[in-house]
């Protein structure tokens, strides 16, 4: 038999790869190696989805997000509604009542005017429904080939009630982990559209503004420590971030997590794990165990929280370790994804 060998590692990364935008480990490396060393300050260092600060006697939350989704229109939403929901949700995860948005458009030369009109109308409608106003904006046009049709950045400002302190570093051993509903719908809807996949039961994005659900939760219980919306990288990445920042372990139960059959089917077909697939209308709450049932009840009364349930608990195991008890009763690790989840060959 011949000599058994392996390739040498590749030289240090010198270019941005698509995986750097996946919300997984490569994204975390960018924060650690590039952004935080240059920009570090106590508010940024918390790495929450929004910054909360006091100004003029009120507490404000501020967040920003850029939307580069392809295709621009998909089942259940489009880049316009997503640009509102994404930023509203980042504010909501800080417990804030969203007030105002900015909207900046980067347009590629040649974009159909009708496309821009449809996206803008959708953005406006989503903002109306969410009760926020777009009060400032910007437009830039780049040469054909320098952009992918249309990018949108939105920045949001919201008002945070007194005593609401939500952050990913506040989870404590014993806390309950609550998920607001079934997972994976946004990611699969986008993938289906992008790849031209057709399923018997089409999957629509779950894109929605979650701030009214959050308001009900905050009204029901004081013991909510952290809220996060599991977008890029899915539930697994969000739980890993919380576990790392709070220096706790988290254990979830596979049986408690709902995946709709059509999403499950698409994931089976494509070799994807729904725990890593993006959501745009779901949230994860870390809650004082004594108040967990009250929070779940409050969530279930809201249309966006009908499927809410306790999916696990925070523990005092190795800091940053997320595990899942499988349906078979065994336990395995739920790691953060290194880059994008790649469809497997077979």
């Amino acid at each position: 038999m011949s000599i058994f060998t392996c390739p040498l590692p590749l030289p240090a990364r010198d270019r941005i790869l698509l995986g750097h935008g996946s919300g997984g480990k490569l994204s975390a490396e960018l924060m650690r190696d590039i952004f935080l060393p240059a920009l570090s300050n106590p508010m940024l260092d918390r790495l929450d989805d929004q910054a909360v600060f006091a100004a003029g006697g009120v507490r404000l939350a501020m967040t920003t997000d850029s939307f580069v989704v392809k295709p621009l229109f998909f089942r259940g939403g489009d880049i316009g509604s997503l640009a509102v929901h994404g930023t509203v949700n980042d504010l909501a995860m800080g417990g804030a009542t969203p007030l105002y948005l900015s909207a900046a458009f980067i347009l590629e030369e040649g974009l159909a005017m009708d496309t821009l009109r449809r996206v803008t109308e959708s953005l406006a409608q989503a903002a109306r429904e969410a009760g926020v106003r777009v009060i400032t904006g910007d437009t830039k046009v780049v040469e054909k080939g320098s952009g992918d049709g249309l990018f949108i950045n939105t920045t949001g400002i919201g008002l945070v009630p007194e005593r609401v302190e939500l952050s990913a570093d506040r989870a404590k051993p014993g806390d309950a982990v609550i998920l607001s509903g079934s997972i994976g719908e946004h990611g699969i809807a986008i993938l289906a559209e992008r790849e031209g996949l057709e399923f018997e039961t089409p999957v629509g994005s779950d894109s929605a503004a979650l701030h009214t659900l959050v308001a009900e939760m905050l009204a029901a219980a004081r013991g909510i420590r952290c809220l996060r919306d599991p977008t890029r990288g899915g539930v697994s990445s969000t739980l890993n971030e919380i576990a790392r920042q709070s220096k706790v372990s988290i254990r979830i139960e596979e049986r408690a997590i709902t995946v709709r059959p059509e999403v499950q089917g698409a994931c089976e077909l494509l070799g994807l794990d729904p725990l890593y697939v993006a959501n745009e209308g779901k949230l994860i709450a870390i809650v004082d165990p004594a108040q967990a049932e009250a929070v779940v009840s409050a969530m279930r009364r809201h249309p966006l929280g009908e499927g809410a349930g306790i999916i696990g608990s925070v523990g005092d195991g190795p800091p940053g370790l997320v595990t899942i008890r499988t349906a078979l009763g065994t336990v395995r690790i739920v790691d953060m994804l290194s880059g994008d989840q790649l469809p497997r060959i077979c």
Partner: protein
Amino acid sequence: MKYIDEYRDPKIAEALVRKLQRQVTRPWVLMEICGGQTHTLMRYGIDELIPRQIELVHGPGCPVCVTPLEVVDKAIEIAARPEVIFVSYGDMLRVPGSRSDLFRVKAEGGDVRIAYTPMDALKIARANPGRRVVFFAIGFETTAPANAMAVWQAKREGLANFSLLVSHVLVPPAIRMLLESPANRVQGFIAPGHVCTVMGYRQYEDLAARYRVPFVVGGFEPVDLLESISMLVAQLEEGRAEVENQYARAVSREGNAPAQRLIGDVFEEADRKWRGIGPIPRSGWRLRPEFDAWNAEKVFGIPEKDVPEPPECISALVLQGLKKPLDCPAFGAGCTPERPLGAPMVSGEGACAAYYRYKTHGAPGASA
């Protein structure tokens, strides 16, 4: 979901584990060939569920992992050309060649696209007559019919801007190599269900008879694997060495005859080098000469070269089931899915990646 839920049913799984506990009287070493099966074993922690006397070792059945460096280098060279649209299954993009990978080629401006089937690459070729579209046709017998169909259609249509970069490998020659190795420890095999869907399981009967080892064609869900293990243990405990079919809902003895005919029309047997293992005679398929005009190696005139793989990791020992990923000093330290040192860390189906994802946590060498 039908055909999924019943094969993940905890009660059925529990009953199979209890059955195994009654069956086993001494230690047995079993190998699952296919990376998809390795993934399920790790994902559901089946290795922790079964009696300790049964040791599972993980076979070389991850197509991404065993594709040799030379071929990855060729893919990178072709993909970097400005006139080329290079189309690949997703998990090949992260596989390092000797200097780069396809993700980097893409980041540096190469037109590299992910497809779910070679038929998508054909569509791209039809839609881009001014470009040369190359599909990276790797894999075991499972992916061969679709690849054969793509090139067969391209020839029929006279689609001159389409070609295949082929690196097909075959399961039975790899099993023969493992069984003939003096270091072999494997006493029974879970044969790869998807490969057998295409090829049937008749070809494993010779191996079972000649080497006196049992085979069970297994599926990919937890209950499939537990049942396959139980069937293998039954054979071993009773001293039988037969080929049995656990995956009967998908696999027949003869396999898919039209697919086999198409494969025979398009491909011929060839020697292949396996990454981490080395050359195995007649262990792969290449395009027949009548398809030279659609053979990317001929079309682009990429010269043959032999890229030595420096002995940095123990992937070969892992791919033959002689070592476990956790035995490797580089595992989790110098070698992670972000910076793979060895091929089995690259693909989600690779044994090292499966261990990394489900069995370890962050720190080098830490196991859960």
